């Protein structure tokens, strides 16, 4: 961009360089979302009659509220599982040599870059009636008839936790890497045990990473359309599929728009709560 101001400062570039992307986002990202909001404020499909009918419908309909509630709960469950399983990975990463570190990172990274459909498909193979879990339990004589694992909440949570684990683990690895190892030694030499040191020193100091990981994992798991629908099946309905059904199958765009806005606001609310916590935790960590 020729309009670069302040030619004196050679180390920075003019804001004009951001103009093309800003314009692109304005037209293809901000405008669609505004249009979505505008349509959600209409009571009829044609978008002629203003009103809050769509929102009232959603907020007074036990079914819709149930879908929202189970989606938010699903996110919390997946995030908790990811945190419990992901933290030890990050801890182990700091304890091993550089070779093993690369191995751990690549194990964590690979699923992130592997197709979500492929990863979800793998869980169908594992959780299915003839899948590994049922086959193993049956051959051990522990069960007679196959357990129903697919199309259950348990199945959705475990599959989503695996799919989203990298999003939790990577920020944790970064956060743990920033903790001064001397603090650990100091705590131990002052008589605190390993468990106490972990809960009183390591965990609080890694809070920024915990919060970053939780934000990403939560946002990703409640919007993970493919895994939710393939592992959850027809009986379990979460917000993304609800939105898609209303928009695509029923062509009820204003209601789908209202669902989208409510879902967007729910995600934003969760993200901003986490971000606020993150800011507070940075102060706590003392930087």
């Amino acid at each position, binding site marked *: *961009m020729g309009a670069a101001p302040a030619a004196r400062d*050679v*180390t920075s570039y003019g*804001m004009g*360089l*951001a103009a093309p*992307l800003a314009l*692109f986002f304005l037209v*293809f*990202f901000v*405008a*669609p*979302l505004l249009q*979505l909001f505008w349509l959600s404020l209409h009571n009829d499909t044609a978008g002629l009659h203003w009103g809050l009918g769509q929102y009232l419908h959603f907020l007074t309909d036990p079914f819709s509220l149930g879908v929202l509630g189970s989606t938010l709960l699903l996110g919390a469950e997946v995030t908790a599982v990811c945190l419990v*399983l*992901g933290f*030890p990975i990050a801890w182990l990463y700091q304890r091993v040599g550089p070779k093993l570190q*690369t191995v751990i990172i690549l194990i*964590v*990274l*690979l699923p992130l*870059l*592997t197709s*979500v*459909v*492929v*990863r979800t*498909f*793998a869980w*169908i*193979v*594992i959780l*299915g009636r*003839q*899948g*590994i879990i049922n*086959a193993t339990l049956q051959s051990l004589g522990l069960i007679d008839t196959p357990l129903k694992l697919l199309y259950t909440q348990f199945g959705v949570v475990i599959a989503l936790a*695996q799919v989203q*684990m990298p999003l939790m683990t*990577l920020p944790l690895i970064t956060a743990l*890497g920033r903790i001064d190892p001397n603090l650990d030694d100091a705590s*131990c030499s002052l*008589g605190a045990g*390993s*468990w106490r040191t*972990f809960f009183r020193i390591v965990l609080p100091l890694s809070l920024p990473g915990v919060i970053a990981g939780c934000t*990403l994992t939560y946002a990703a798991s*409640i*919007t993970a*359309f*493919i895994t939710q*629908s*393939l592992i959850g099946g027809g009986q379990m309905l979460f917000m993304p599929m609800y*939105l898609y059904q209303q928009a*695509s199958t029923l062509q009820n*765009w204003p209601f789908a*728009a209202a669902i989208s806005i409510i*879902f*967007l606001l729910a995600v*934003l609310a969760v993200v901003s709560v986490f971000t606020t916590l993150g800011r507070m935790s940075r102060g706590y960590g003392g930087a």
Partner: protein
Amino acid sequence: MSGRKRTLEAISFELVMTVIAVIALLIIIAPSLVVLIVSFTSGFSLRFPPPGYSLRWYVELWNAWQLHFAAKNSLIVALWATGLSVVLGVAAALAISRSRTLSARLLDSLFMSPLVLPALAFGLAALMLFSLVGLPVSPLTLVIGHTVVCVPYVVRNTVAALAQLEPTLLESSAVLGASRLYTFRRIVLPLIRPGIIAGAFIAFMSSFDNVPVSLFLRDAATDMLPIRMWQDLEGKLDVTIAALSGVLIIATIALVAVMERVTGLSRRLTN
């Protein structure tokens, strides 16, 4: 005495943490291994372990023209979306990375927001806007939609690479009489290139794998690979999908290995 107690306590802690970590790593890696093994089955079902091994489903995949067609579409859209993301994203990253102004920070949040907002809501919103202005869904609308959700990866990785660039290098270059463009071409670009490539790679992979945006923005004639796979899996459990998954897993591993060499991908994503 207290020393011994502490050791036992330390061992219990390390044991618990290590066991959970190993189980977690196994949970992460197991599904891909299972799919790889099942894809070589000689049977008709996804039973594990397979009754026997053969390459029959890979042969089947070779003839599955519907999947080839979908894969070609996904590849073309991903390449265009990645190209557009790199051009727009790198320019934007140059502008906002060294600026501490409010507008730079606001733009940064704007460019990052597609990462946390539900992509399905964005897909629906984009479809509504396109139909309002009379632009029919086509490969073009797909590329536009994919670029919005992929550009954050390019911006983030380029900003990170620029943040590690020594400002003194740019000053020295200017003092020695190099023009800004020359400095950019000979100093800045070579140093941030690995960051740009890493961002472009992640953008490409996420476009190739995108379902929520494609669901709304594709036309009936443009079948996309992940959607085709998803719909096949909803209908029946076809073992051909296992073979295709095998190909995708191997391709991902190969690409990540190359990227690790070229860009040090793993360090980039943990810093």
